[in-house]
């Protein structure tokens, strides 16, 4: 430890998991009982991909802890009226009163039944930050597990602020809830708006910096020059929402040129024969899809061990075709083209000349990028990783938010994944990797989630669309199981349906759906949907109508302004928790180790703030769910199962346990799990060392070895399964009289064609709001800020101070040429108006943005959060409509809207 300023100085081990790109390990310097500094944890330098460092957000935690604006006692609302302009009249109360009030409401709800008359859970919960709150909410998941059905579908940004389509299609195609390039080996990366330098965390930043110095070329394609664009070799300022067209040109060029033939024949469905109705031609006996064996001259099942599958062209063959709802067509000697042949014909019209006009880029750009991509693909080369020989394909395509969300998300995700398949870089070294699993099971291990399906692909847990299996009554208000087969049914699935539907239903009924009801009780933690969702005015109105809202509150904010009870929990430096680290997690968090890390309190709780585990235990006891709660902890709901082969640290299920006891048992179980029972060190060990890990073979970064081991193929390029379930879903919905999801149903196509996506946006806005889109000449987009994203730190002065060093945080970024036409100068106050709403802020002139595009970084526009409410910085969220017309089949939309700009009088 370096020189101490006082005799009573110590460094406390902890972690930062404020953003999805974590967790990262850190040390907190404590002087005379006061946390004063955040530092990297260099003791973790060997095991952590970024050398034990944490990003700028972690440094905000000192101020976060001692912020004088914190809520430090439980509070209750005294004004029954709720609304933005209504004083809630919060008054301090004791923890006993607060917990008794909450528990009383919960017991009442349970007595009425855990679901309401519409079948929706009476208890709802919203957590922000892409799942990161679970790293801070202690044993609350165990309480929720003990409770039963909980509606988690009131989104706080999901579907538009996340990588939504990528989550769903990624999990389907390669167990990739999140997708990342294999940056340590990648040599050529085409990045469509993926803002890894802002949202890839320390691992992403470190790896890409290493890659740059190594000579990797990254082409950044986006309407504005983001931080990531700045750090790229080339910036292509593409027209918003036309990325798919650019990618289709890459497919067009690649399909005519160099391909990884072996990969396509044996690891994809490219050679599968497509029957006349658009479904696979199948063996009548086994129903296995058929390929044409060029060597033997006949149709053979996909798993035929010998033979040489025909890749392109057509063959005359016999078999059956299985359509929706098990319709079977028999074919005798019909001509069937291969899936690859369909693909070649599908992409044939997508020439560079065609795309140049759509994307507003030089004709040469997509052609050259495609050629360079192929030049770097190293088709035919191999690499040995931990003894495993794998293809080396150091090329990748990355997609950003807005690119893979909403309409066009299907096209972009498909094209990206397919591009990788064409050169053999999907799930191979240097290529495109999935880095976490959330919808398939088990979530902790991508390899174990690989299970063979009937058609030679990985099995996928689609929500059923069969006549007797379709879930006609949604179990949650986002209707994810009813409307989105791809959303599956894991603990994460509710948040991956069309979460705006849950909000929209609070204001309007949807035909032939259960009556929209508010939840009896709504728990809110580390999220502020009244700021972070779309059409924030509408969300605010809905929240104001919820009968009983409990917010685990840090400071006042726009959502807990509507709360009935505020509970002050320990912040990041005050609470205790054990979490899993390493393996493969979000974004670029793929490690050579896996294990556990402890969040060890560095500061006593301020005021009456309580550890989240204490709060959860108290609730469990007062709601009379203690036994079930302890059982959930024993089963692993707090992050690690407390018993295993040769060890058992299970808690007595009949007693309420203190925080240290619970985490000591978890630490012991974690030690045992990592050492096959050899070590059983508890809390003391983790407090001293901070973390404990075991090796995680780099082979596990890639799905390819497991795919090969199980003889499976990636479900590319032809989406026969999606075609079938789309038809079935349409049938089910129509049988129930639902036709408002028809345009989404139409998206289930085996080979997605280009659609006029910008036009789709414009037409939808014109029709819904009866406006002329010509009056809204700019596209408004947003971009993540590394300093703020996911951090819940907008009320922290230091973050504001340092973020202001990065251009654009203070206003609306506009191209100077566009500004001149409007007689605008830098710093002028402007009104930005969409058909939905208007906001205002000051103009920030930058050359790094298209003249037809405006940019608002981050999400601000606060009116209650201390400090932030004085920023006077706009957000695009208030300008974004919640519209079914702008919702794709996966239930997502994109951060994109057309706006006008008008100079306002007065200085900004």
């Amino acid at each position, binding site marked *: *430890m*370096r*020189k101490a300023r006082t005799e009573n100085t110590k460094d406390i081990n902890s972690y930062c998991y404020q953003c999805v790109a974590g967790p990262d390990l850190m040390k907190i310097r404590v*002087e005379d009982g*006061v946390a*004063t*500094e*955040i*530092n*990297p944890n260099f003791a973790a330098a060997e095991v952590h991909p*970024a*050398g034990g*460092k*944490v*990003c*700028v957000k972690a*440094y*905000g935690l*000192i*101020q976060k802890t*001692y*912020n*004088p*604006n914190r809520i430090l006692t439980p509070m209750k609302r005294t004004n029954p009226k709720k609304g933005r302009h209504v004083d809630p009249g919060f008054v301090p109360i004791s923890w006993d009163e607060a917990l008794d009030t909450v528990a009383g409401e919960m017991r009442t709800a349970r007595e009425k039944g855990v679901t309401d008359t519409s079948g929706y859970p009476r208890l709802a919960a919203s957590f922000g930050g892409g799942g990161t709150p679970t790293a801070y909410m202690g044993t609350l998941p165990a309480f929720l597990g003990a409770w039963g059905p909980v509606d988690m579908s009131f989104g706080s940004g999901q579907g538009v602020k996340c990588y939504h389509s990528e989550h769903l299609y990624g999990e389907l195609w390669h167990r990739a809830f999140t997708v990342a390039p294999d940056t340590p080996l990648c040599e050529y990366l085409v990045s469509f708006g993926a803002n890894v*330098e802002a949202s890839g965390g320390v691992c992403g*930043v*470190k790896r890409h*910096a*290493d*890659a*740059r*110095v190594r*000579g*990797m*070329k990254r082409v950044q394609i986006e309407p504005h*020059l983001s*931080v990531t664009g*700045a*750090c790229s*070799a080339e*910036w292509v*300022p593409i027209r918003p929402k036309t990325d798919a067209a650019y990618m289709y040109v890459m497919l067009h060029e690649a399909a005519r040129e160099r391909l990884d033939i072996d990969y396509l024949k044996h690891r994809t469905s490219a050679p599968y024969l497509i029957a006349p109705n658009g479904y696979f031609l199948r063996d009548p006996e086994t129903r296995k899809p058929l390929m044409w064996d060029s060597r033997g001259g006949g149709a053979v099942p996909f798993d035929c061990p010998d033979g040489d599958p025909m890749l392109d062209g057509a063959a005359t063959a016999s078999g059956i075709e299985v359509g929706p709802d098990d319709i079977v067509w028999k074919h005798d000697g019909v001509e069937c083209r291969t899936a690859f042949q369909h693909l070649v014909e599908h992409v044939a019209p997508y020439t560079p000349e065609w795309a140049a006009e759509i994307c507003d880029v030089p004709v040469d750009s997509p052609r050259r990028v495609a050629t360079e991509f192929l030049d770097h693909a190293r088709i035919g080369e191999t690499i040995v990783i931990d003894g495993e020989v794998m293809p080396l394909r150091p090329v990748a395509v990355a997609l950003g938010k807005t690119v893979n969300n909403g309409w066009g998300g299907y096209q972009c995700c498909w094209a990206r994944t397919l591009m990788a398949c064409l050169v053999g870089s999907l799930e191979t070294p240097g290529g495109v990797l999935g880095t976490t699993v959330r919808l398939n099971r088990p979530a902790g291990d991508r390899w174990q989630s690989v299970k063979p399906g009937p058609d030679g692909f990985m099995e996928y847990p689609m929500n059923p669309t069969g006549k007797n299996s379709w879930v006609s009554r949604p179990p949650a208000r986002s209707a994810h199981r009813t409307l989105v087969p791809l959303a599956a049914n894991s603990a994460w699935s509710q948040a991956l349906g069309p979460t705006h539907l849950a909000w929209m239903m609070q204001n309007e009924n949807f035909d032939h759906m259960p009556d929209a009801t508010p939840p009896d009780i709504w728990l809110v933690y580390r999220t502020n949907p009244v700021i972070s969702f779309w059409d924030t005015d509408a969300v605010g109105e809905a929240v104001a109508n919820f009968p009983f809202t409990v917010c685990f509150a840090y400071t006042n904010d726009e959502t807990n302004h509507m709360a009935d009870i505020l509970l002050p929990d320990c912040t990041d430096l005050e609470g205790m928790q054990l979490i899993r680290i390493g393996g493969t997690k979000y974004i670029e968090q793929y490690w050579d180790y896996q294990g556990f890390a402890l969040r060890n309190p560095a500061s006593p709780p301020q005021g009456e703030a309580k550890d989240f585990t204490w709060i959860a235990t108290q609730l469990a006891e007062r709601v009379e769910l203690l036994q079930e709660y302890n059982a959930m902890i024993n089963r692993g709901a707090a992050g690690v199962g407390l018993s295993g082969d040769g060890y058992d640290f299970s808690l007595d299920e009949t007693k309420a346990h203190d925080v240290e006891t619970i985490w000591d048992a978890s630490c012991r179980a974690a030690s045992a799990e990592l050492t096959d029972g050899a070590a059983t060190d508890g809390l003391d060990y983790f407090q001293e060392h901070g973390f404990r890990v075991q090796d995680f073979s780099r082979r596990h970064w890639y799905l390819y070895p497991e795919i090969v081991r199980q003889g499976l193929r990636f479900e590319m390029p032809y989406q026969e399964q999606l075609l079938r379930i789309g038809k079935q879903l349409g049938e089910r919905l129509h049988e129930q009289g639902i036709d408002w999801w028809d345009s989404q149903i139409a998206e289930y196509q085996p080979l997605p064609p280009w659609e006029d996506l910008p036009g789709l946006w414009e037409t939808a806005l014109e029709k819904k709001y009866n406006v002329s889109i010509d009056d809204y000449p700019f596209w408004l987009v947003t971009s993540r800020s*590394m*300093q703020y994203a996911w951090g819940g730190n907008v009320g922290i*002065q*230091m973050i504001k*101070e*340092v973020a202001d*060093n*990065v*251009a654009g945080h203070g206003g609306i970024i506009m191209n*100077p040429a566009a*500004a001149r036409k409007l007689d605008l100068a*830098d710093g002028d106050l402007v009104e930005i108006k969409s058909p939905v709403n208007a906001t205002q802020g000051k103009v920030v*002139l*930058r*050359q*790094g*943005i298209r003249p037809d595009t405006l940019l608002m970084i981050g999400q601000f526009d606060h009116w209650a959060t201390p*400090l932030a409410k004085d920023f006077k910085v706009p957000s695009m969220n208030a300008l974004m409509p919640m519209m079914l017309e702008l919702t794709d089949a996966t239930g997502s939309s994109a951060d994109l809207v057309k706006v006008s700009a008008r100079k306002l009088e007065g200085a900004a």
Partner: protein
Amino acid sequence: MTRWSMVADLRRCVGCQTCTSACKHANATPPLVQWRRVLDIETGEYPDVQRTFVPVGCMHCADPPCMHVCPSTATRQRDDGIVTIDYDLCIGCAYCAVACPYQARYKVDLPRFAFGAKQMRHEAAREMPERLGVAQKCTFCSDRIDYGLENGLTPGVDSEATPACVNSCIADALHFGDADDPSSNVSTLLRENRHFRMHEELGTNPGFHYLWDGDRESLDTATGDAMAADDKTALRGNDTGAYMPGVIPWQQTHWDWRAAGNFIFGGTGSGLLAVLAATAWSGTSPPAWLGLLALAFIGAGLFLVWTEIGRMLRFLHVVLNPQTSWMTREAMIALLVFASGGVAFFNPSLGWMTVAGAFGLLFLYCQGRILHEAKGIPAWREPRIVTLIFGTGLAEGCGLLLMASAALSGTAAMPIAAALLLLIAYRAFAWRRYLRALLDTGAPARTLDILAGLRLWMAGLGAVAPAALILGGAFLPAFAPGLFALAGLTALAAGWLFKFTLVNAASLNQGFAIDHTPARGSGPTGVGVKPGWR
């Protein structure tokens, strides 16, 4: 020898501000004080745009202007190259801050907390009253270096001996080490990569290097600096309209109207003293109270500047650095001015008046040199500022004398009027030369615009009007007293207007510049830029 140096790899830096934050933690700097920060510099025009993130802070120059100007010797340089500030010696005059061409120095006069008046626990625990009212800046975390060396650690290699910003850098863009050790990490980086130092043309020999490309093959010089000298002098701004606060030169705020008051009153007073001496040599003896008036002017100027320093009770420390600080020299000369002026008042002999006048000239010269040594302010550091300050001081003094003489003796003031005519001609000449030099060497565009706006005033009010009035007085003796007085007033007003503008409006700082935009991966490098310059 050891030369601790920082290397920032611009290819790696992503502008995340983690180093900025880590520095704030390690050094407990108050809000809006950033010893380390990262600039966001945009170059080019749409669609050919580059954006470069550039860490900056104290460059720990081998030839630090801040140290040379420091009147109290608070700013010093260690043998290992680290430039330090002794908070107990510093008077808070902020001369170092305007002398620094890297805008690395801060001065905070009152306690400042993140959330207004509410001091947080960690702020109370790390309160540093010794830093109030004095200059502060990056120390290269010298406490860590010293601790490390005492414990056998290697700064830049062992984290406990390494600056906090370097430790925290998530892109591994920042490196620290001994540039004098050819085997050190930073020496290796400099040897193997192309690099530049910021504002190297100013001759400060900064200890902060920027890597921008890795191609060693085409290096032009043995030092690894690939940019030819001609290219560097050609480095100019590009006015793309891009918003770059904290990058484009901005108006310095360290010296306000009170500092301007010193140049205004001190310049006029010392000019008057010199002119009075010259008058005595011509055989006339102006009223003795004019000498007192001159001293009062100088005293008023010094009083104003005293109210601006952060540690007023330490003002005597101003005399501790006569070796290099022109502020010290000005203070010492001021003592001699008052002493000799006082004697001359009571004993108005030609000799004492000459001595007082000579010290007045020296005082005036010191004022010119004070501005010239402020290397951080392009409008001040231009060498021709010295003759301009000197010339205008004399013109102002003469103008004041003419006003008094005209009122007292009417046409008898003709010789003084003639002298003023010569002095305003000299001032006009010096002003023109000064402006030409600024245009030739380049300056912040806003500085040039503001000074261009002064041209009419300097010509009209400062030259044409007084000249015409003097000629009018010569040809119309009946109106001579009024016209001469008015001539003196216009000459004086022009000088004051110029100095007030120079100190409070045209004193934009150096801003920041890069010699090259860095290679990102296999992408190209780009030309450098000096935003906001013309």
